[in-house]
């Protein structure tokens, strides 16, 4: 068996991890499983694709590939803008849908609403962009051998670096800043957090923004490595949940490690069984965790 699955799994795992971090944040702070999170991934990717096209049309020079990467400045800039827009999409979705439900105080109603929102967001993508696949980059990259029979493309190295920066920055935010402490406080006990004067509404807005922005990053990675399709986010949802629960709900490092484990397991499956069974392994991981250790690797007992 070739060791190539390590590199493929790491890249796939980064995509899963960035999405799972958002799921675990919304889960621990808002206390519900957000089935619409996968659609943030699709929306982020489509927004990036749209903006990159617009920027590229405005300045042709920006579309020239940044050697050794396969994409130009336009995609980089579009990705950053799309992260902000997807974050705002999360904030907007909360304002129109989830905030009214929170006032009624039914958490399972939020899960149900998120499932409906997922269907609506995906149908909108199909309506606006049709279901024809799109591409962020059409360039072929030569994979560089890095030893032990493993080859990686420069894009893949960049994606792993971006994931490390994003998750590192989030971990720093949660651990060392005032707003991060507020977020952890709301996750521990919302009522008590409110009593000590924490602006819970602000924490919730920030949670949606961060979750949406990271989902967008995950979507861009997926769009670069594979292709852009309306179902791309929905297809990733099960691996995201598996990774978040494996890592322990509420734990950002847990979501990262859970994502990498799921990514590696998927890569092994692709190599041994076949690419079409990739998602099934996420289900096995999910069942395994729920049977053996429902609190996950880094979770606290509820």
């Amino acid at each position, binding site marked *: 068996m070739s060791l190539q699955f390590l590199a493929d799994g790491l890249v796939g795992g980064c995509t899963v991890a960035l999405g799972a971090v958002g799921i675990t944040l919304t889960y621990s702070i808002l206390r519900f499983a957000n089935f619409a999170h996968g659609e943030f991934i699709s929306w982020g990717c489509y927004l990036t694709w749209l903006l990159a096209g617009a920027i590229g049309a405005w300045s042709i020079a920006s579309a020239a590939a940044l050697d050794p990467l396969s994409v130009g400045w336009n995609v980089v800039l579009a990705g950053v803008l799309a992260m902000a827009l997807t974050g705002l999409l999360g904030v907007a979705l909360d304002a129109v849908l989830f905030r009214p439900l929170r006032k009624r105080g039914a958490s399972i109603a939020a899960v*149900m609403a998120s499932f409906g929102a997922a*269907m609506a967001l995906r*149908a909108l993508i199909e309506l606006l962009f049709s279901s024809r696949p799109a591409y962020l980059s059409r360039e072929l990259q030569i994979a560089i051998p890095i030893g032990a029979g493993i080859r990686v493309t420069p894009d893949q190295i960049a994606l792993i670096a971006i994931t490390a920066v994003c998750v590192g920055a989030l971990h720093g935010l949660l651990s060392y800043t005032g707003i991060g402490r507020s977020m952890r406080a709301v996750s521990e006990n919302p009522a008590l957090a409110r009593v000590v004067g924490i602006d819970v509404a602000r924490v919730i807005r920030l949670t949606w923004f961060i979750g949406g922005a990271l989902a967008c990053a995950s979507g861009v990675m997926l769009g670069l490595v594979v292709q852009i399709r309306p179902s791309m986010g929905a297809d990733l949802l*099960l691996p995201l*949940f598996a990774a978040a*629960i494996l890592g322990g709900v509420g734990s950002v490092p847990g979501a990262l490690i859970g994502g990498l484990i799921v990514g590696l397991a998927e890569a092994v499956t692709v190599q041994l069984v076949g690419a*079409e069974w990739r998602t099934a392994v996420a289900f096995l991981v*999910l069942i395994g965790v729920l049977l053996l250790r429902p609190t996950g690797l880094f979770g606290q007992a509820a």
Partner: protein
Amino acid sequence: MPDLIGITAYGSVFFTVALISGIACLGLNLQWGQTGLFNVGVAGFIAIGAYTSALLSTAQAGGHLGGYHWPIAAACLGAMLAAALAAALVGIVTLRLRSDYFAITTFGLAVVVQLILRNAQPLTGGAFGISFIPRPFETLADRPVLFGLANLMLVGALVTVLYSALEALVRSPWGRVLRAVREDERAARALGKSASRYRLQAFTIGGAIMGLAGALQAHLIGFIAPDNFEASLTFQIWTMLIVGGSGNNLGALLGAGLVSVVWSATGLATGVLFPPEDQAQAAALRIIAIGVLLATTIVLRPRGLLGERVTVSRHVAESAVEPSDTPG
């Protein structure tokens, strides 16, 4: 002169399909409406029923497992058993955990079922699905009106039986425990009722009913494919229940009828309004129409068209008519 034959044939197919959705919706009502179990994998259970029944009953295997040639009724029972087994397995793993984990696992089951339908070609026929599934009134097939009406009467009779059975269950002590578990698990446990056991029973029976819906779909239409069991089916069944009135069996059937009308009407409209190459995009509009119906209901009438009726024990109702001094 209007095409009476065409209208009757179309009408009977429409009501047959609506009643089949109604059966699935009754199953969901037992799980969610009565017991509060959030099943996001409805399409998966329907698919398990449809494929089990189809594989058991087809006469020849065309490139997939099957060729057992079971009678239709036996195949339907097999389908219910298979779907119930899947529900029981999911329930055993997740019902002791928090409700979101249960929801995520049912979602995962539907994803895996969809993967198997598409990729396990030797078992399920892959993307092409299974055709030539035996139909109950095959001999009438060349007379569309009679054939349609016979199918409709068969499904109508099954729905009547199922509805009566579920209504009896709702009023039984068992049904009362389900609602007690839904409303206040701690109180139910304090009365010595094992919440997780009752949940597992309700979820398993609901799964079997969904399996029956799938089996009927297979036998009355004669053809099934993975596309029929996508997540949007789950969404439709849920909308039916919420629009009709969660917790009310009649509401479940009413919602099934109403959503089916919207689904068919938008299908006809997009078929006329959009050229064939844009049909995939037009299909998205139909999903959005269902979503609008759902959102409108949640905002304007959160309990659905027919809200849950207060069901109390026969004995309590009698003692309410004749007030007695002793507290019951």
